[in-house]
């Protein structure tokens, strides 16, 4: 009931959408009625194209993101804990930080052609920096007093890392990961729209090219919902991990 009241405005928007199209205020060529879009959603599900393409998209996103998290964490932690490593890698990170990630799309096309590898690697590259920066800033921001008290209580170097530095840095690490999740979706869709051979982005582009707008809207809404639920799931997970805060 509370969830219903909370999301009532979305319902109002949905009704409004249906109404303006039904009343002919907006051309159905530009905006198909919501009910038509939902019907195409059902047929996309039943003919399997949504699931097949969706699985391919998600596989790439998860692979690229997973690799980025592992490599990014190692790089970020190395920079935060080893000054020499920071002097080597830090300037490179700084150099690549302002590069708009979508500019890498032609590069991965040159490197890997038009296959899965290109898109997966793009997602990996795009998600890397938020993870590196979140880990680095998180670990660097840990209050020295915390480390000192742990050391004076007899904690070893390894224990300080595991029991003090990591938990204290966790909020910022998770913030970096959340940005990375958003980037993964963005780059997944963008690369599939451009390097179009399969995946949800490809489906959107192809349906659009054929003028099949109701199913195109349906896939766009599906992608949006996936992004939304991925983020919600991530927030729930980080709330669990950060129970100690307040």
């Amino acid at each position, binding site marked *: 009931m509370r969830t219903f009241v*909370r*999301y*009532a*405005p*979305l319902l*109002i*928007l949905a009704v409004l959408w249906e109404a303006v199209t039904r009343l002919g205020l907006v051309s159905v060529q*530009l905006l198909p009625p919501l009910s038509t879009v939902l019907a195409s959603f059902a047929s996309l599900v039943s003919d399997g194209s949504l699931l097949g393409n969706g699985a391919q998209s998600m596989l790439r996103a998860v692979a690229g993101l997973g690799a980025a998290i592992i490599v990014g964490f190692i790089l970020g932690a190395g920079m935060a804990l080893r000054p020499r490593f920071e*002097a*080597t*890698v*830090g*300037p*490179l990170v700084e*150099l*690549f*930080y*302002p*590069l*708009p*990630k*979508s*500019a*890498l*799309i*032609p*590069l991965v*096309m*040159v*490197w890997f052609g038009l296959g899965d590898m290109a898109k997966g690697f793009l997602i990996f590259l795009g998600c890397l920096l938020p993870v590196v920066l979140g880990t680095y800033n998180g670990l660097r921001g840990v209050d020295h007093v915390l480390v000192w008290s742990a050391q004076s209580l007899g904690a070893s170097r390894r224990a300080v890392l595991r029991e003090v530095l990591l938990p204290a840095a966790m909020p910022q690490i998770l913030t970096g990961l959340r940005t990375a999740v*958003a980037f993964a*979706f*963005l780059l*997944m*869709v*963008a690369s599939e*729209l*451009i390097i179009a051979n399969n995946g*949800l*982005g490809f489906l*959107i*582009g192809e349906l*659009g090219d054929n003028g099949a*707008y109701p199913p*195109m*809207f349906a*896939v*766009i809404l599906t*992608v*949006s919902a996936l*992004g*939304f639920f*991925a*983020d*919600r799931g991530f927030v729930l997970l980080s709330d669990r991990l950060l129970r100690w805060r307040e």
Partner: protein
Amino acid sequence: MSERTLAAAPSRRWALPPLARLRGMALRWTSPLVLLALWEIIGRLGLVRPFLLPPLESVVARLGEDIADGALLNNAAITLYHALAGFVLSVAIGVPLGLLIARRRAFRWFCEPVVSVGFPMPKIAFLPIFMLWFGVFDLSKIVMVTFSTVFTVIAAADAGARGVETRLVWSAQSLGARSLAVFWEVALPASMPQILTGLQVALPQSMIIAVGAEMLMGGAGLGGAMMQAGSYADAVGVYAGIVETAAVGMIAVVLMARLRAWLLRWHAEFNPR
């Protein structure tokens, strides 16, 4: 009384002795230079096919050509136009809306769920819809940028205005400020640090989207030029395009940081005690 004057506290970086500063600068530039050297060596020795990694000198030469014939300036200007027009629009809409959501109950009820759904959505997926509605020229690219960044701006302004100290509002009220004055004279400046943090996220976002939209819709601009180079298998053009895009992105990031420092010159962040 132990009151400190901080009229001319020098910033820490410049307080370093010159020699140490020189060493710091040398350290910063070492690895980028080593990377460039490696690139050149790999190219010379032919370790990697030139298509995958064209020689450094040919990329530099292409950059020189692009500068000389005005292509770089032209494309950069167009990309910046798409990114900044969309960004400014998104600030103009997002900041007032975020403040209203934080401080007016009706707005919060209606907009909060919409923003919470819109914020994490991969907005780029809407690009075909905007192409359908607005065509493939400037307008749809600008709208795409605005749509992609406005939720970030709204969320930042909302979070900032929600955290405004009650005591500040009370102070203003007891000094005679009315409701609208509280909004513009207290809520807005008090939210400034968070709004600017949001803008520092939104500006790179708008660069990403502008370049991506140009790639997808074609036409002039850095993204379009790179896509063209990519589809003609012009690796040198792709590499030059990445360097150019990075440079434009860097300028945007630096200018934004400057703007932040200037707007927040009152903030403790810039007045270490």
